[in-house]
């Protein structure tokens, strides 16, 4: 049966980025034919969006269980109310010596940072990386780790390594993954060094690359006749590499009809938080849409972030204000910061919802964990974390609910529940004690 490219085209306007242009991709491109065969099982993706320095819980947690009311911080997510599951009662382990480092490090690993000021860092493998390993063969990039703030070298929280506050992703116990904050670098990692996204230009570029490779292969063929055994091995290596790239080009050309919205390669880090946040979310949508990766972690801010948000009249610096000492004025300001983050997150959800994917939208086929590893920032509380799960989870998640769990339920139980939904066979994760019932 011939199916005529029904998953194509999908030209979507990319907001805030100017014109929508189609863009074919290397590697990741699945010809429409094979894709439609798999249409029954949509691609399931994982996204983790982290917010630092705790949340004003009284303005976050709904009072009703099940169907819930919108609170001041959740209000920006109103149009997605039915796609969210708000989780209350999860705990991020016992208090630990580096309170901020522990919040971010334990969020996905469930393990506290190693108490050391040395160059040795250690925690545990993070849940997102379990999923990344699972999908590694399917996509060009196993995962993306992104942030909005540049990393620090040296020591941060109580003299522990800055790695603990800078990242939430750990490939192994001793390999923290750096978070990239420069959209240009992210773009290049996804799309190579192309700087125009005009599909004609890109196809022309591929064609010229092909002719380059053809011609180099000719040169090698000439050379080869003049070489001895060991040298021929090297030259064959080179020929193999050429053929490999030619196959990739062919793959892209074969499905040249597939169209995606695209961005110009960003010049660098945008000057404002808003621009940077939106650009980073746009790139995440693109990465999912093109199936270049299926796992993304994103820190809206690093733990201990002292960022100010002049665009909402918040000039003080996030971290100092988070030590509000129960001053209602400061708490009100913090709520505004928390809601400001939620506004950015809503933008991401909107972009996912308006991007078609298979039989539905990207939002249908993603599981998003949004939240942080600390509840009250004033006391660095690891109890009763602010977490919500968004998206359809490829048919496995039902939103519009507020679930309350017994106090002290490890956040690891959330990971242990989500991992199997994402195809990772794991009965438990870290210090999990079971699955979250009802999720």
């Amino acid at each position, binding site marked *: 049966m011939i199916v005529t490219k029904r998953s194509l085209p999908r030209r979507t306007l990319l907001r805030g980025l100017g014109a929508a242009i189609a863009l074919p991709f290397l590697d990741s491109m699945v010809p429409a034919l094979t894709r439609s065969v798999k249409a029954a099982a949509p691609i399931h993706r994982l996204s983790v969006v982290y917010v630092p320095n705790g949340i004003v819980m009284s303005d976050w947690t709904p009072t009703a269980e099940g169907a819930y009311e919108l609170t001041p911080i959740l209000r920006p997510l109103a149009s997605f109310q039915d796609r969210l599951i708000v989780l209350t009662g999860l705990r991020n382990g016992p208090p630990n010596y580096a309170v901020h480092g522990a919040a971010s490090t334990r969020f996905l690993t469930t393990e506290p940072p190693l108490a050391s*000021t*040395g*160059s040795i860092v250690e925690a545990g493998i993070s849940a997102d990386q379990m999923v990344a390993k699972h999908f590694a063969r399917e996509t060009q990039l196993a995962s993306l780790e992104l942030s909005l*703030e540049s990393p*620090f*070298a*040296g*020591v941060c929280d109580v*003299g522990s*390594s*800055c790695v603990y506050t800078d990242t939430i992703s750990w490939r192994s116990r001793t390999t923290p993954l750096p978070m990239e904050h*420069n959209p*240009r670098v992210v773009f290049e990692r996804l799309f*190579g*060094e192309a*700087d125009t996204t005009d599909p004609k230009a890109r196809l022309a570029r591929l064609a*010229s690359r092909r*002719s*380059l490779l053809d*011609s*180099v292969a000719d*040169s*090698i063929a*000439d*050379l080869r006749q*003049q*070489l*001895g*055994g*060991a*040298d021929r*091995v*090297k*030259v064959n*290596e*080179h020929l*193999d*590499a*050429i053929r*490999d*790239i030619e196959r990739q080009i062919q793959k892209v050309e074969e499905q040249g009809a597939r169209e995606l919205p695209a961005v*110009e*390669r*960003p*010049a*660098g880090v945008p*000057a404002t938080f808003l621009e940077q946040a939106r650009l980073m979310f746009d790139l995440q949508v693109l990465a999912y849409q093109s199936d270049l990766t299926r796992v993304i972690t994103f820190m809206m801010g690093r733990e*201990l*972030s*002292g*960022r*100010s948000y*002049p665009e909402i009249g918040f*000039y*003080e*610096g996030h*971290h*100092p*204000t988070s*030590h509000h000492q129960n001053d209602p004025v400061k708490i009100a300001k913090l709520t505004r910061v928390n809601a400001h983050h939620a506004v950015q997150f809503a933008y991401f959800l909107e972009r996912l919802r308006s991007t078609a994917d298979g039989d539905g939208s990207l939002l249908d086929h993603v599981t998003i964990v949004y939240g942080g590893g600390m509840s009250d920032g004033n006391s660095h509380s690891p109890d009763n974390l602010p977490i919500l799960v968004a998206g359809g989870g490829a048919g496995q998640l039902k939103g519009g609910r507020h679930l309350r769990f017994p106090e002290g339920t490890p956040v690891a139980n959330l990971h242990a529940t989500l991992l199997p939904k994402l195809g990772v066979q794991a009965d438990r994760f870290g210090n999990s004690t079971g699955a979250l019932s009802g999720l």
Partner: protein
Amino acid sequence: MRGIAAPIVMIALAGAGLTGVPAAARNASVQPTTPDRSLLDRYCVSCHNTRQQTAGLAFDTKDVGRVGTEPRTWERVARQLRSGMMPPPGSPRPDPVSSQAFAAALEAEIDTAAAASPRPGRPVIHRLNRAEYANAIRDLLDIEIDASSLLPADESLGGFDNIGGVLSISPSLLERYLSAAGKISRLAVGDPTIGPAFASKTYEAPQTVFQDARMSEDLPFGSRGGLAVRHHFPLDAEYVCRIRLRRNILGYVRGLTDPHLLEVRLDGTRVKRFTIGGNRQLAPAPLSFTGVIPGDPQWEAYALTADEGLEIRFRATAGPHVVAVSFLDEAFEPEGVLQPELTGLGLAYSEFSSAPSGPWGPSVDTVSIDGPFHATGVGETPSRRRLLSCRPATADHEEACARQIISTVARSGYRGTVDDKDVNRLIDFYRAGRKDTASFEGGIQAAVERLLVDPRFLFRIERDPPDIARGSAYHISDVERASRLSFFLWSSIPDDPLLEAAARGTLHEPVTLETHVKRMIADDRASALVDNFAVQWLALRQLRPVTLDAEIFTEYDGNLRDAFLQETQRFVQDQLRQDRSVLDLLTAKYTFVNERLARHYGIRGVYGNHYRRIAVGGERVGLLGHGSILTATSYPTRTSPVLRGRWLLDTLLGAPPPPPPPDIPALPSSGEHDRKLTMRQRTEQHRRNPACASCHVRMDPLGFALENFDAIGRWRTTGETGEPIDAAGALPDGTTFRGVSGVRTLVTSRPEEFVRVLTGKLMTYALGRAVDEDDMPAIRAVVREAAPGNYRWSALMLGIVRSVPFTMRQAEP
């Protein structure tokens, strides 16, 4: 097939004396005579015989009168005897004098046989490594590229990253080459379609470097901190320079208490001056509460956004320009009660007196150069001048001009091995590019892009002449010799004079060769010998990266690390320039320091950040007094006599111990016992285990002799547990020595051995392959011939480029 075969025969080149051969025997001038087989019969045959075949050797049937038939075997025998490794401990041994005489006789026989039938080896195709690629681009197109952003680092073998056998090519690497070729060719020709997304770049000041002084020779005198970058401006156009200042971990810009002047200069001319800081009406939070309790809201806002307006727009012509961003240096005196220096947490939190900022004021974090905007033309750049040797006046002239340009660049890029077919291939690309871009220069760009991915450019390829007998040794052509010379001495492609001499067929003539070698060593490009050879030989790429974790060594930061590397590189460079004896590496009574390094060494009277030559004595004489080496051979928390001993054995004495066996327990740390153990006491536990002892008995005493230097190279008299340093040691043969001067004497009293080690390393680097038994006659010859002039660098270099492995090649077997 040598070089690709895996076994790493980084031969223990000598190592005599380190395991049991007394100095007397070594120093006895041994007259080579015919090897006497009675020694074999008495001491060797009991294990190595036809029946037992220990190690696959049977000496009862080997003819010691015909060493030349099995040179590799006998080379190994000589080495075992020279190093005293055989006969094994406990077995009867020949007296040292006869053992050394026997080895010398074997070597003489081997050398004679090698002279009669040379075995030069057969280097495999050699991909240019990253440094060679960048240098080749520089010399071909007159454009400096940041290779580390374009290409991945290369694999290395035996300490060098230019070993052909391990320089492989993968699809992802080829992708990088393809994209690099596109980028470089567009920049070189000056592609008018280049936009900001292509050319914008952000330069970061290293986070671990304190900006407390003038940071670079490209920054003005009287400046402090900042960053000077050499940026390639692709077009005549407008550019935007944005500066971000260093923040503390809470996001506050550091060092805002007092006003400071920040200057931006383009090629030395000031284009803008900003004032930053000093807004004293506003009150910050108290120092110890910063980041927890906000201060005045306006101060908070200012501290978080103080660098937002640091942005200027200017016009620049196409080509490389130096953009320099720095503060005006101002004297300051700390007020109030003198505070202890901050480390660890305080250092990270405080915005007043902490690293990487400090009491001197703010620091620059990044400098971004965005553009081109509103381009007015492609301008004239050095690369355009180099490349576009003709400019066609009319369309009729284009093809001829293109051919001229392309032939020239192909001759250099393909290193003299260009034929019509090669040029025509490039011309095809010129034509296609000419058509696609409707411009002559677009065509040239396409041809250059094609050239940069050609195997003739990316690989060093040597071809057997037609009709050569299989397996025979033959002299390489002068064209191949030109490349061997330039990649050895410059890590780059040959220049025109070399290619011309090769084309004339005179490069192999002794006088011409010597003239070229001396010319090349004197050329600036020979600094590659320092950056690539010396740095790798001395294992300085292991100099540990700096983090701000400095609980123990608070002084170790990026500035000191840079100064360490500068010292050693400038010193070796100077030795090479002056063509000193290579033994001077260990005995020279001078070095290069700046203020920071001088202070670290406790040397007075050196001010300012530039490096200068100063006289030194005592512990700082020669390389062994360099902080770079002493730090690279230490752990982050303490010295390691074992690492230092191993370094000495491998780098200077040519007797590297094998890697440790698996599953060895770590040394107990000094705190784990009731009483603190000294390093010496802890390390002596090695000797109790015979499996450890056989190597540690050689490594540890050498390392302990350097214990007067701490883990960052400072002189000390007490160790980490407070015990007085005992720097005395002895080799298994009873030779005793004390301290760094003792080690120095140990090495220089056996000049021949040290030179043999260095020659072996140089030979490895020059050939791009591991050296093995077959190369030993050549290495011995280089050493022998360099001896009369007291082993000058030029003698070693000349010896190597005249040697059999360098001038010859084995045809395919």
